[in-house]
């Protein structure tokens, strides 16, 4: 069980983290520069928070009031670095061995052999890290971390240095490794796809503030804040003012929208790209806008539509007509698909 409640002043903002997780795979999802890596470093003890508390399985790792700050060596925290941080001057075997300082010398050899077998590193024992592929390097790094028997596993953007082709196999491998790990896992990522595949729960971190933990499903289908909606790939949003029950004025889109639910403190309205449709004969929530750009996607195309104050992105179904630049279209924003969002506290 890991409890983190810390604050640290960074260059542009103050990092405020509140995490409480128990034998879970939790994702910290946020854009780059949101303070994700610093959070992990504070938990590992490589970086020091300004104030707060970190408690792991009942043991206080950090407490600013009691002046406790346990050395990283004694925290029993496994850290998978972005570039894996394998020691270039050591072989695969020696790298794994460095994780085994806790156990008796006589047992180390046996344990190394087990880990090498388990992580499919047979035949690579005597090689140096720079001769290995990205996937092999990640397996060595994981073997080295498992060797040190940590209580919590911190994964810092584990796939950032890989190309898409390799990524998919590595995600599977990492998933398997995580299933065998019985402690807390915190994974930092900016990619909702990775988070979906590997994590159960997720907290969005935006400008240093960690938002409430929720399930990955809830995050995607019921985002509550603008930061949550945007990180899950919801590009279309407008600021919103509550007019009357179920009615909002959206100045950025230049339209009054009818919504199904009613949250008076909603500050934004958003809709997923794929939920936008061309208007048929709907009478409400119809918006006329002009095509300003046509974008080729991996599959099909999407168009950028200009509204009063913002741009709406809309993927085109394959069979639909292809609009030309400057064409005007009416689109329909389904009230069932609209998200009412609060701003996160430091948006103001």
């Amino acid at each position: 069980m890991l409890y983190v409640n810390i604050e640290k002043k960074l260059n542009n903002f103050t990092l405020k983290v509140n995490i409480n997780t128990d034998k879970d795979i939790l994702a910290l999802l946020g854009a780059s520069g949101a303070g994700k890596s610093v959070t992990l470093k504070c938990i590992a003890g490589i970086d020091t928070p300004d104030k707060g508390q970190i408690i792991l399985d009942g043991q206080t790792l950090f407490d600013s009031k009691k002046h406790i700050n346990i050395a990283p060596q004694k925290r029993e925290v496994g850290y998978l670095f972005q570039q894996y941080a394998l020691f270039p001057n050591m072989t695969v075997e020696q790298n794994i061995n460095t994780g085994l300082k806790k156990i008796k010398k006589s047992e180390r050899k046996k344990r190394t052999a087990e880990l090498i077998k388990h992580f499919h590193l047979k035949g690579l024992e005597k090689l140096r890290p720079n001769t290995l592929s990205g996937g092999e390097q990640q397996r060595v790094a994981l073997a080295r971390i498992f060797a040190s028997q940590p209580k919590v596993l911190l994964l810092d953007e584990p796939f950032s240095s890989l190309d898409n082709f390799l990524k998919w196999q590595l995600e599977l491998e990492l998933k398997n490794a995580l299933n065998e790990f019985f402690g807390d896992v915190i994974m930092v990522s900016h990619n909702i796809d990775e988070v979906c595949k590997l994590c159960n729960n997720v907290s969005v971190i935006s400008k240093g503030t960690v938002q409430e933990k929720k399930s990955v499903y809830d995050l995607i289908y019921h985002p509550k804040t603008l930061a949550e909606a945007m990180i899950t790939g919801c590009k279309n949003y407008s600021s919103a003012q509550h007019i009357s029950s179920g009615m909002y004025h959206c100045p950025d889109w230049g339209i009054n929208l009818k919504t199904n639910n009613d949250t008076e403190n909603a500050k934004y309205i958003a809709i997923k790209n794929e939920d936008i449709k061309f208007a048929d004969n709907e009478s409400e929530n119809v918006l006329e806008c002009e095509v300003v750009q046509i974008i080729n996607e991996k599959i099909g195309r999407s168009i950028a539509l200009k509204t009063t104050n913002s741009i709406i992105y809309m993927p085109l179904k394959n069979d639909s007509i292809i609009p030309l630049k400057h064409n005007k279209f009416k689109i329909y924003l389904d009230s069932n698909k609209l998200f009412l969002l609060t701003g996160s506290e430091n948006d103001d």
Partner: protein
Amino acid sequence: MDLFPLYNSLRIAVISTFFVFFLGIAAAYYIAKCPRFVKGILDVFFTLPLVLPPTVVGYLLLLLLGPKRIIGSAFFESFNIRLTMNWWSAIFAVTVIVFPLMYRTARGAFESFDDTLSDAGKTLGLSNSYIFWRIRIPNCKQAIISGVVLSFARALGEYGATSMIAGYIPNKTATVSTAVYQLWRTGNDELAFKWVMINIAISALVLLAINLLERPKSRV
């Protein structure tokens, strides 16, 4: 031909390089942890001997170590040892003169060292000294070796500060560089020329060694 100056030069250079190796690395390592203001001041202080005329360094050392000065007189009174005009007195001079070379190369290497490696070591429970000697130093090996060789080369040729603090006493404090000056001054051109050639040969060898070391490695 009396080879004492060569022997003396070599032993002074070897011992000084040995000291400078540890001092330079330690200074480079700890200065990185200082706050910026302190870092700036210490860096100037540590690098100064590189740009000062060696005679100025010699003069300053004599202010400290001279028989009537603070450290010099203290040593003489307690141990009956004079710190100047011995063969080993030159070690003080050479160490100070050569120190910036080792310090600068080690600092450069440490600055380009990837700190996540030492962070990784810490999270794996490795002690700081293990991380330093088994991870940091081996990964900065190339730069540190060229720092050592460069320091050795410079140590071998030190003249100014050495002549002030150890003088020229044949068979006692004479080094190659002081011998060349002394022989030339006394008109022994032929012998001076021999020593000059020896000096050039050794320095060229050392520089050749540096170039071989700095040649990019194909694969580790």
